């Protein structure tokens, strides 16, 4: 049995790209957890999409064995978390499994919006926080300034912050020392009945559903009969392991430990994050305090391009949902697109990631319809509907009013870009709530409609501030406004998958922008294609895609043919991703990209 006093559990938190995963690499490397030859950068970012985009999407746990200078051995469980807003939920649930957080701040950038948001979550979770200033190898690193900033903005003591470079390894030994000396050990009793929390679960092609647990009390052993308290489902544990980061089998897990098990779980819906796991017999009676799964805020339809792949899509979505409790779905059917699913996400990046994973890991081509937030529609007969599909909107005469969700957005930005940021927020129907300064950085708080933020606000913000602003938000309230449904007609036929709900005052601008975008996104055909935006039958914007008049390669000799074939292969792949609407073929990317506003 492990001595609980020799266990330390912590998460690594930071703003996006401040170096969490790189720090995890160094901790893994210094403890020889992974053989040198198997080591690679951001080793925990194991999904293709994570490696491609260079960001962490899923929180990842690793168990390290650390020996200190007095030759004492400690078990450290670290959880590397994602930095992007859309995955904030991964951070908060990880925090429930551990007692402390390493707060990483890029010393060349300073405190950013997710630094703040994550620190607050850590404080709420009663975490001991160790501030770490990273990237001190960079010439732009300004340790003194960033320390003051941490104290001024976050209000935590940064005088003892550790200065490190996760890249070169400088300062890492100090990180270990403080993990051991400053973080509390977990609490719990091996004598009490088993009480474990379900931290995460995912689908593994070989093992089926894998469950990540944190033991609070009692002991979990291989072969144990267990019960998931919320769902009352029973299983017996087939395999018990710790993550290093690959699974290494273990016989038992005691209080304070984190590990995974499999138990031939078929019902993926049985594994609810936050649930309490105990023994079937002589189990605990009081579950741990659960935590609310975060609610999806952006919805869209996912349809297979090839309608015969509907069942395959269902299976893929089922499996992904195990891995991602913040993703919701239900079946949907559409006249133009056939059967598919209406899915809910935490944000647009989350949506793109799930879509990419379905396409890649399950090899299904998808059409994604225009994303929407949830509107509350009050009908004239007093019925209230929650609508996130413009196609479900009742006739205009039956609508009394529509409410939309608004958010409280916090933006940190260097003073010289403040004007741009204010303008952007103002253009998106924002109401300024607060504006304060931290040195030369402004912190603005805005009340904004979620539907103006969901699609491309973050991209725009990055581009108008050259990447210097950071942004975080939380949903605040529903507010009534002048909202209408806008339809898009392609070659004179309405395309439902492109219709959106929009503010009356913004309709013309959005309509124009969508028509312009679609003009770029839809390939030329042999005939002219009008693209129009309409509000209740009235055309408010129009573009025309001219007919294809010339398309021939001038030179094609022995060496050119290879290139020409590659082009053809690309076109073939592209064709697979097109959907026919009337006489027009629309590429599937068009549905989302059309919404990204040109400004």
């Amino acid at each position: 049995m492990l001595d609980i006093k020799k266990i330390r559990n912590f998460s690594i938190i930071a703003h996006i790209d401040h170096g969490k995963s790189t720090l995890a690499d160094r901790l893994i490397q210094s403890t020889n957890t992974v053989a040198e030859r198997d080591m690679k950068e951001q080793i925990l970012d194991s999904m293709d999409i994570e490696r491609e985009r260079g960001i962490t999407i899923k929180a990842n746990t690793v168990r390290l064995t650390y020996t200190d200078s007095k030759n004492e051995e400690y078990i450290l469980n670290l959880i590397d978390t994602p930095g992007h807003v859309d995955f904030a939920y991964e951070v908060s649930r990880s925090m429930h499994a551990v007692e402390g957080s390493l707060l990483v701040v890029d010393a060349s950038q300073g405190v950013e919006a997710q630094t703040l948001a994550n620190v607050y979550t850590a404080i709420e979770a009663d975490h001991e926080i160790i501030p770490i200033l990273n990237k001190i190898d960079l010439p732009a690193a300004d340790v003194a300034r960033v320390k003051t900033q941490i104290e001024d903005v976050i209000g935590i003591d940064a005088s003892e912050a550790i200065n490190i470079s996760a890249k070169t390894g400088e300062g890492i030994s100090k990180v270990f020392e403080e993990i051991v000396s400053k973080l509390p050990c977990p609490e719990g009793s091996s004598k009490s009945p088993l009480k474990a929390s379900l931290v995460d679960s995912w689908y593994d092609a070989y093992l089926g559903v894998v469950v990540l647990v944190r033991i609070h009390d009692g002991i979990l052993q291989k072969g144990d009969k267990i019960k998931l308290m919320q769902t009352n489902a029973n299983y017996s544990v087939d395999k018990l392991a710790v993550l290093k980061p690959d699974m290494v089998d273990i016989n038992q897990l005691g209080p304070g430990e984190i590990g995974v098990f499999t138990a031939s779980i078929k019902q993926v819906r049985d594994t609810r994050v936050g649930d309490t796991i105990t023994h079937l017999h002589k189990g605990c009676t009081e579950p741990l305090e659960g935590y609310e799964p975060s609610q999806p805020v952006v919805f869209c339809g996912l349809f297979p391009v090839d309608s015969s792949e509907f069942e395959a899509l269902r299976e893929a979505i089922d499996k992904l949902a195990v891995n991602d409790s913040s993703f919701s779905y239900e079946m949907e059917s559409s006249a133009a697109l056939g059967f598919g699913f209406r899915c809910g996400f935490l944000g647009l990046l989350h949506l793109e990631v799930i879509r990419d994973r379905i396409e890649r890991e399950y090899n299904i081509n998808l059409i994604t319809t225009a994303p929407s937030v949830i509107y509350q529609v009050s009908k004239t007969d007093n019925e209230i509907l929650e609508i996130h599909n413009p196609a479900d909107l009742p006739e205009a005469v039956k609508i009394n009013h529509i409410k939309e969700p608004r958010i409280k957005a916090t933006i940190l930005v260097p003073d010289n870009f403040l004007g741009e940021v204010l303008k952007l927020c103002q253009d998106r129907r924002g109401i300024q709530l607060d504006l304060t300064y931290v040195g030369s950085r402004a912190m603005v708080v805005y009340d904004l409609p979620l539907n103006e933020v969901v699609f491309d606000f973050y991209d725009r913000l990055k581009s108008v501030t050259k990447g210097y602003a950071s942004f975080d938000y939380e949903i605040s309230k529903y507010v009534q406004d002048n909202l209408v449904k806008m339809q898009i007609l392609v070659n004179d036929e309405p395309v439902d998958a492109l219709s959106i709900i929009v503010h009356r005052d913004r309709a013309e601008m959005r309509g124009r922008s969508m028509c312009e975008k679609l003009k770029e996104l839809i390939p030329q055909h042999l005939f002219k294609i009008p693209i129009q935006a309409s509000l209740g039958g009235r055309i408010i914007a129009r573009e025309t895609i001219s007919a294809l008049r010339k398309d021939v390669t001038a030179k094609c000799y022995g060496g050119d043919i290879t290139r020409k074939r590659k082009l053809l292969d690309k076109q073939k792949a592209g064709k697979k991703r097109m959907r026919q609407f009337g006489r027009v073929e629309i590429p599937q990317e068009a549905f989302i990209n059309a919404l990204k506003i040109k400004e």
Partner: protein
Amino acid sequence: MNNISIYLHWPFCESKCPYCDFNSHVREKVVQEDWLQGYLKNIRLWVSIFQNPKIKTIYFGGGTPSLMEPNIVSDLLEGLYKYYSISNNIEISLEANPSSVEIKKFRDYASAGINRISIGVQSFVDKDLRLLGRRHNSKEALSAVEIGKNIFENLSFDLIYGRQFQSLLDWEKELQFAISLRSQHLSLYQLTVENNTAFGKLFDKGKLKGLPCDELSRKLFMTTNDICYSHGYKPYEISNFALDKQECKHNVNYWKCGNFLGIGPGAHGRYQFNQKRFSYENIKNPETWLNKSFNEDLAINIKKRMSDLDHFEEFVIMGLRLSEGLSLSKMHKNFGKRFDEKILQELIRLGFIEIASNQLKVLQKGKVLLNYITKQLLT
């Protein structure tokens, strides 16, 4: 395999033209003797693979092969003759740039065995030659053509049209003039803005001004075909025009998916061996290519057995470029494939193609949309 074409790639130029994405490089000094040895080594190694091939055509392409010393060309040809048998009416072409230095070598090339010259005129308008970044002027271009005509039994020259600020009328006049020179052959390429060229970069920044719109581009293409046709230059391929029976045999072999060996940096090859078709590509970088050749190795990068589908698609992509069209019965016999009847009917209805005695021909109205048609037929 008995009939074969040989392509030799000379990868060097005096300067890099802003529109050019060929494998061409500017080097201060090129030791031509070393290169000769490099080519010869590759030739010898290929010989060990094929028994008794007969060479139908040889093509010196580039880059600027007219920078080669005539004795190098001559030694190279000698080297080839040592191992391969030569067909009686062999065609041996060389691409030449029309600078005065190069014109002086024409006679020696002819003595070395070159019997067809292809001159990179590009334009007869000085202002446009400057826009194209060429080193020669129109006078040199004209004298290259005239001198070349007296020396070689077969002369072709290249023009690029659809240039910046070029009107339909400008081009018609220039083309009429080109035709009046009565060369055996003309290659008339519509300017293509390629990625990774200076033009490509300017274009992406929106700084390449005065290019024709699609509509003008279409008219330029149509007019080019019409004018050439009415003056006896048969548009036998998308960008190639020839007086009666003066088609470039070497290039026709590409379009008919024949066998060809490519030798030199970046050169491609295709050949049939034991009923299987192979494709390969030489190492692109000149120095790496040469080094590898010196190590008694074939300086190739990728060589692979082509799938039947790859072979079929090449057969179609290339074959449709020729005015004589594609034999549907041969296609069915060799590849077991037929085109989708609905798509064929639609293309016929649109006046893009015609099918007569099992030969599919792309008509002029279709040629200008050839990529579209190919895509329809193959996807």
